[in-house]
């Protein structure tokens, strides 16, 4: 499945400082394309894209607090979807 994943707000630092990743995700064994959800995608990203400090991205089986999922963990992911992850890093002023 072809997907475009965009990382911003500092999250790109966890994956080689690349903001936009065009990726081809193999479905888990035996899964229909209908079954591929945000939850699967998150675990795929964690395994395949995040190079350091995965705890900055996920907590349990979902994204860290401060994450907004439009839809839920069971939101279905489809071919050519664009998914954006942005961190709300803190600052001083």
């Amino acid at each position: 499945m072809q997907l475009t994943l965009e990382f911003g707000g500092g999250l790109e630092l966890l994956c080689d400082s690349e903001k936009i990743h065009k990726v081809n995700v193999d479905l888990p064994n035996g899964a229909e394309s209908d079954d591929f959800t945000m939850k699967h995608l998150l675990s795929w990203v964690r395994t395949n894209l995040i190079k350091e400090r995965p705890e900055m991205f996920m907590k349990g089986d979902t994204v860290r607090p401060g994450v907004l999922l439009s839809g839920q963990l069971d939101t279905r992911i489809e071919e050519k979807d664009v998914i954006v992850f942005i961190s709300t890093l803190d600052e001083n002023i």
Partner: protein
Amino acid sequence: MEAKSKKAVASRLCCLCNLRRPVLKRPKTLQQICRECFYEVFEEEIHQVIVQNRLFKSGERVAIGASGGKDSTVLAYVLSELNRRHNYGLDLFLLSIDEGITGYRDDSLETVKRNEVQYGLPLQIVSYKDLYGWTMDEIVKMIGLKNNCTFCGVFRRQALDRGAALLKVDKLVTGHNADDIAETVLLNILRGDIARLSRCTSITTGEDGPIPRCKPFKYTYEKEIVMYAYFKKLDYFSTECIYSPNAYRGFAREFIKDLERIRPRAILDIIKSGEDFRIATTTKMPEQGTCERCGYISSQKWCKACVLLEGLNRGLPKMGIGRPRGVNGDHKMETKKPGSVAKSIESKQCGSLDF
């Protein structure tokens, strides 16, 4: 952090205009709305906060505390937009502090310099080196990575006032958002810092001092600021400070975000609780005076910045950290309660927002 998938909402229409396809679920209300309506509610709510709280008067000069991060960048953008749209009649300026942190502030200042051009706002930069004779890099070299945020926070507060004085502005606005304020309410409860608890939810502070400060984003959710910056493609800098351990505030942050996930209103409700606290009249509050050395507001003989600076210059960097000693300490100990000013600054972590 935000993750969003377009398909999930494709079948419905924006629940505000009922015309366009929604592209986001609004963090504050969980409404599915379109981009245009998001801009409108986001900007209009801030405008209403400004009007209802009479934050500005026509003809005022206003400095925007600008770090190059998301909050202050969005604030600079939205405020100049609203100033034009609603004829506030304000003269806006960007005010940045150069703490002297290589690899962090030098880069974020580049962002502010671009903002200066993009928004057409004059920029003033004041540096710790000029004001205090020390950069944060030099301070960290001397004191290590413990308590460095105390120095930075105390120095920044004064630096902003000094910069505002240079610009001859009437007011200083900062990008503190609803999440920051809810966090601070919790932290002040956790520290028993009654003085700060009673003032940390005020939208305007320091009205008795030379330059009042206000927070137009007091009710604005952090996630919405990030989404706004994303959709508007605003140019902001997102790297965590290289010296920031941020431990205590970090826990409060995460806790607030956990609460928000279950009930988005929690953030507003914590702020409301903070606003409605009434402090018992028997509670001894620190008395505001002025620093004998530099004249800055202080509840002690010397202000915190002067104490810290004296320590640095005498090679005793621990001075002013921990229990009050020396200049301010001994004679005041008996009147002190936990949570009075000098004691509480010691435990302030970075991200220590200037409330």
